[in-house]
């Protein structure tokens, strides 16, 4: 994985000192909150319902064992002993003190970590496929491209005060494991005539007005990507709406102009910018790529795994994905124990994951937009021992992509923006469907819960989605069906009137019972829904 050189280190160190000075000026009153807020947001520091929250960047969802240990250290030393993995592959700490924030950033900088631009109206963390570098279906590892963009977007002087936040995702396979089409700009690495380049999508996003991204350009070569993206961002910076915060994302601009007119403006800007000498040489991407060379895989390893323990066998079948190197596997670590808080991990669990990564995964981990962790390079022979260690720590749940592997935002328990709680609902659903093996019977079922319309829980893209709303001061939940964040991208449809917390759990049970009654062959819930439509489900729910 990428290692900072002295330039990269100097940048994060300077950023720490800049924020230390800004914090000092806020605490002395020299800066008002209105003046300080954008500055602290650009260092990942929110003011939430109970405390400041710090969102640490995990660039493109890759981190090392020492970095994971640092996250555990921060949880233990500055917070209340735990952290929360997010739908953008980052980690959040919920109980941070402003006066500690500069020291926390300084600690992070010692292991090449930061909280730069994880919030604010700027370019955010660039997310990527969590199986990057280890999946046989990828055209190339997307992470070097993501790192190139991370550097390009960090402290970009023209794009520091955009109309609104800007999110990139990078994948490199036809299968979309990173919700690429639901980002402001999505990048799919493709190969044309033996050359790898970027297929660009623009204007995807969830929130109040969910939209699926449009193809902006079929192919942008390595040698022109930065100039092209500068053009795309410049058009957005100049013409994105500034009059209404809820209509300020690029998806609205693309919708209002139409993709053809937006594209025309980008191409014009690209033609003008192209001669300015702003493009890094291709050698820079090659330099970055060298850090992502495959680890020293052993050869001649056994392919078979001892399945005699039925609990292990279930985890093996459910959570372990095929690795492109013989004898190896990709291990998905569930942060969704039955009845637990989705995406939360204790400091002890973070430390354990670091240890396990060192012992079993060449010291490397990934985070996923579904709030789980991945150990990407595990010898098949090590899987039983790995699982045993995970299971002992409550990290061995065998539920990848099952209904209990749900995405849930922090919701009204933590978030000042929320209208309803999401975690207690997630816990109830988890307990109901874990009973009698129901989660396993239902098969692949991606359930996603958002506590408000900002959709941090991706409810529009859930096979089953739940949106928490405020109905005359009471929590109420709307149910959506048929969304997907994968390459078959679709937005969910609302079923009808909402429910209280127990009511929506019952409604989901009716929906899934109908699926079980009507499914043909091996089709997933999503496929049955697409085949038979909303009407039968509506009837089953509302009787």
């Amino acid at each position, binding site marked *: 994985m990428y290692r900072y*050189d002295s*330039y*990269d280190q*100097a*940048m994060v160190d*300077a950023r720490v*000192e*800049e924020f230390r*000075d*800004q914090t000092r*000026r806020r605490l002395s009153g*020299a800066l008002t909150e209105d*003046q300080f807020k*954008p*500055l602290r947001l650009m260092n990942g520091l929110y003011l939430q319902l109970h405390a400041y929250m710090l969102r640490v960047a995990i660039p493109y969802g890759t981190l090392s064992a020492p970095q994971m240990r640092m996250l555990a250290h921060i949880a233990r030393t500055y917070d209340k002993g735990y952290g929360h993995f997010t739908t953008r592959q980052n980690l959040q700490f919920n109980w941070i003190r402003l006066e500690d924030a500069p020291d926390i950033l300084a600690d992070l900088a010692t292991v090449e970590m930061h909280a730069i631009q994880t919030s604010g*109206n700027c370019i955010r963390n660039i997310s990527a496929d969590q199986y990057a570098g280890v999946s046989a279906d990828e055209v190339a590892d997307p992470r070097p491209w993501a790192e190139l963009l991370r*550097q*390009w977007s*960090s*402290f*970009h*002087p*023209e*794009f*520091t*005060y*955009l109309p609104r936040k800007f999110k990139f995702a990078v994948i490199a396979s036809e299968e979309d494991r990173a919700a690429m089409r639901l980002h402001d700009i999505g990048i799919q690495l493709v190969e044309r005539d033996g050359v790898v380049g970027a297929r660009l999508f623009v204007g995807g996003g969830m929130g109040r007005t969910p939209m699926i991204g449009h193809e902006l350009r079929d192919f942008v070569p390595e040698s022109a990507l930065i100039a092209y993206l500068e053009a795309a961002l*410049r058009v957005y*910076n*100049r013409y994105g709406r*500034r009059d209404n915060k809820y209509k300020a994302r690029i998806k609205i601009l693309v919708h209002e102009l139409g993709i053809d007119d937006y594209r025309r403006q980008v191409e014009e800007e690209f033609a*003008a*910018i192209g001669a*300015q*000498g*702003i493009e*890094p*040489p291709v*050698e*820079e991407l090659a*330099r970055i790529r060298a850090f992502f060379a495959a680890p020293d895989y052993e050869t001649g390893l056994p392919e078979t795994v001892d399945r005699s323990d039925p609990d292990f066998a279930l985890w093996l079948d459910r959570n372990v994905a095929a690795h492109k190197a013989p004898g190896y596997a990709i291990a998905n670590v569930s942060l969704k124990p039955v009845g637990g808080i989705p995406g939360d991990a204790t400091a002890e669990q973070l430390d354990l994951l670091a240890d396990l990564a060192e012992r079993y995964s060449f010291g490397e981990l990934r985070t996923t937009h579904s709030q789980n962790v991945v150990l990407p390079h595990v010898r098949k022979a090590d899987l039983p021992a790995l699982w045993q260690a995970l299971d002992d720590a409550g990290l061995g749940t065998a539920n990848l992509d099952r209904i209990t592997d749900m995405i849930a935002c922090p919701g009204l328990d933590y978030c000042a923006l929320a209208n309803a709680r999401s975690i207690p609902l997630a816990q109830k659903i988890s307990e109901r469907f874990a009973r009698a093996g129901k989660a396993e019977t239902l098969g692949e079922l991606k359930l996603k819960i958002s506590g408000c319309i900002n959709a941090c829980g991706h409810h529009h893209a859930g096979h089953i989605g739940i949106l928490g709303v405020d109905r005359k001061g009471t929590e109420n939940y709307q149910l959506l069906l048929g969304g997907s964040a994968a390459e078959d991208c679709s937005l969910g449809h609302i079923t009808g009137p909402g429910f209280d917390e127990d009511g929506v759990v019952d409604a989901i049970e009716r929906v899934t019972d109908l699926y079980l009654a009507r499914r043909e062959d091996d089709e997933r819930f999503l496929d049955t829904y697409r085949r038979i439509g909303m009407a039968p489900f509506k009837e089953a729910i509302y009787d």
Partner: protein
Amino acid sequence: MTDLFDLRSAEAPSAPLPADVKPLSLEAFLAAPGNATAVRLEPGDDARALLPHCDRLALVEVSFPVFGDGRGYSSARLLREAGYRGELRASGDVLVDQLAALRRCGFDTAAPDAPLDAAVAKASLTRFADVYQAAADGRTPIWARRAGKEG
């Protein structure tokens, strides 16, 4: 009395804002340029409308009514890319924390509504020894330093 900060120097010296030049609005300038050498751009103005006139302009003032509206950064940068060589001045709700980005986008001077702390201004302009991107200030980006291409 507004001070005018010179962003070209790391010391960020300031002097009282010169009272002699009153920039025309873009609309007024385009309608009747006359002998005018100074234009003021609002966030919603199209900076490219000035491109045919760059050679005769000595001052383009870019207004920032609120610092969170970042359109002026694009206006400045594209004027520099098109070859404008006169003074680029950022005025309005300009805080010390924006000075470095303003400089990088090609601004020469800043005329903030509220007084700036000179020491903090200087620190802000000199804090980052290097830069990741090529921009309008001519600083060598890190990717060029890595390739051994100084200049």
